[in-house]
């Protein structure tokens, strides 16, 4: 099953990817492809939309309908697609800056409206493409080119943000726990409302090198393991122990019809009402 997925879903002529050695993005893309295979839908029924940054190079490599849009606006583009193609699976891949900085407004509104699209956030806590600037999820005290003496701003918790704004499926995993990641993405795509999967992934070159992890992929992967804590275990840990950690697992999984499908239901209801009136008249 392994190699067939690669051949079926990857645009092999676009290989190799642009991602640096040891970057976690390729792992997330692999997980996404397996999720698509498990969902079993035709490639023509899938749209993959991205913004700008290393994460957003993903659609270039995947053989479905793909859109590489402007920085932070992937969700807005995806909303347009979903509205006109309601039965397509519309998946958005974004970086942490893409999703929570320049695109933050679109993110929280998509959650509030329960827009039926799936958002996979490649969360490496840095702007990698442009060389390592601070992003909204850069850990407190971490170093970046625009925080040469340590980041003084506390980071966003993408999960809390999504929960607060009303997303109906919210989960987090990491590239260190790939089986779990596969499962979460599948459930996210299946959810009929706004799904958010926050994925902790390392950036050895821009983040690792500046934060005592060196560019060594193994040290960076080890760091991912250390900063992610499953929900059950987190419940027994003190606030102090949880500082700087990302809690993984499913945080919300409720069934609400997504906005687009609500529109469709309304349309059908009105059509039926008109027809009935037509018969009576």
């Amino acid at each position, binding site marked *: 099953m392994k190699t067939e997925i690669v051949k079926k879903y990857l645009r092999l002529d676009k290989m190799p990817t642009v991602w640096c050695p040891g970057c976690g993005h390729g792992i997330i893309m692999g997980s996404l492809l397996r999720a698509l295979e498990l969902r079993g839908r035709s490639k023509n029924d899938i749209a993959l939309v991205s913004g700008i940054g290393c994460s957003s190079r993903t659609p270039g490599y995947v053989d479905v309908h793909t859109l590489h849009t*402007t*920085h*932070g606006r992937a969700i807005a583009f995806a909303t347009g697609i979903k509205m006109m193609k309601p039965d397509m699976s519309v998946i958005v891949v974004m970086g942490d800056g893409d999703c929570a*900085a*320049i695109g933050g407004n679109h993110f929280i509104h998509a959650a509030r409206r329960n827009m039926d699209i799936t958002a996979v956030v490649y969360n490496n806590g840095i702007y990698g493409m*442009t060389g390592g*600037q*601070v992003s*909204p999820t850069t850990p407190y005290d971490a170093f970046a080119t625009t*925080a040469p003496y340590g980041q003084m701003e506390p980071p966003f918790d993408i999960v809390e943000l999504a929960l607060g704004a009303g997303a109906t499926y919210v989960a987090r995993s990491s590239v260190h726990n790939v089986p779990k990641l596969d499962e979460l993405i599948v459930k996210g795509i299946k959810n009929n409302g706004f799904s958010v999967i926050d994925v902790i992934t390392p950036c050895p070159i821009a983040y690792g090198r500046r934060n005592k992890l060196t560019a060594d992929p193994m040290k960076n992967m080890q760091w991912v393991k250390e900063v992610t804590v499953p929900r059950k275990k987190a419940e027994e840990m003190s606030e102090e122990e949880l500082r700087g950690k990302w809690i993984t697992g499913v945080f919300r999984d409720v069934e609400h019809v997504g906005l687009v499908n609500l529109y469709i239901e309304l349309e059908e209801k009105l059509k039926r009402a008109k027809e009935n009136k037509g018969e009576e008249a």
Partner: protein
Amino acid sequence: MRKVMIGNHALSYGAKISRAQVIPAYPITPQTEVVELLSEMCANGEMDAKFIKVESEHSAMTASIGASATGARVFTATSAQGLALMHEVLHWAVGARTPIVMGNINRAMAPPWTIWTEQTDSLAQRDTGWMQLYAQNSQEVLDSVIQAYKVAEAVQIPAMVILAAFVLSHTSEAVELPEQGKVDEFLPPYEPEYRIDPANPHAFGGLTGPDGYFELRYQIQKAIEDALPKWDEVGAEFGEVFGRKYGLIETYKVEDAKNLIISSATLASTARTAVDTLREKGEKVGLLRIRIFRPFPSAQIRSILSSVDRAVVVDRNISFGASGIFYQEVKAAVYNEKNPPPIFGVIAGIGGRDVTKKDIIDIYEDIMRMDEPKSDIIWKGVRL
């Protein structure tokens, strides 16, 4: 003190030496080195300034306006998509008369995605009221930031110092760092007449009906026109103090020129070497480099064009549906002259395609063979 640096860092040092006090910025290729160096200098105390990591370019300009409205000297920098995202508040900065100086790295607009140079991103902002300066090398970039603050703060209109992506932004050249003491004399602290001041509270930007709006906008146009002689004055004064003279335009071998090459920024710089070669072949050709695009130096362009037989404008931009933008403005400047020379419009180097000395020579020889301009666009380098 002479230091080899990339164009981006010339911008950062320009802001530092001009004692910028607030720097709200968002990273975008190819501008990142500008803000990284500034963030470093703010953090290590080399600059007595606040670096604000904002969440997008729209916030970068909005925060700049807020800071400038309190009377602080503000610097920011961006490029292409980022500059476009600022558009709404670029207008606001002019209406609020906040003399912000911004570095813009010329980069072509998407889609398709590109990081290479083209002037359409900044030229597309030509109606917002921002003054626009196109630099041809890194020394001019640094020097222009200082001059831009002096002019901007005199007329209370913001200004962009614009340089080409990679051709300047990432190219290292030797740059003379002006001496801080002399710069402090040349560029005194910013003291605006109107500012947000708790001791003297006022409401800014209020609703203004048709009875008052026209007079306010008229004053903006007046202020930008007043900047025309100011750029030459400040450029000349800069020459006296620092030994490098600047002005609205720069001419090269035009005294006896029969034909003129008109261009801007790094294209004009390369064109200068083409003029030398053409002169060796006996061609009576000169170069007019337009340094300040807004306010547009129409009068000086008219006087130079009055004595030539024909001119070719080389644009690294395009106003879709019309033509090159410098071409439009040059043609418009001479339209009402008694017998303006024929003006040819060439578009080259779009999306960062390289424009060599030989390309400029070919352009010149092509237009010399034509008896008159037959179209508004002569394409150079596109594979038809």
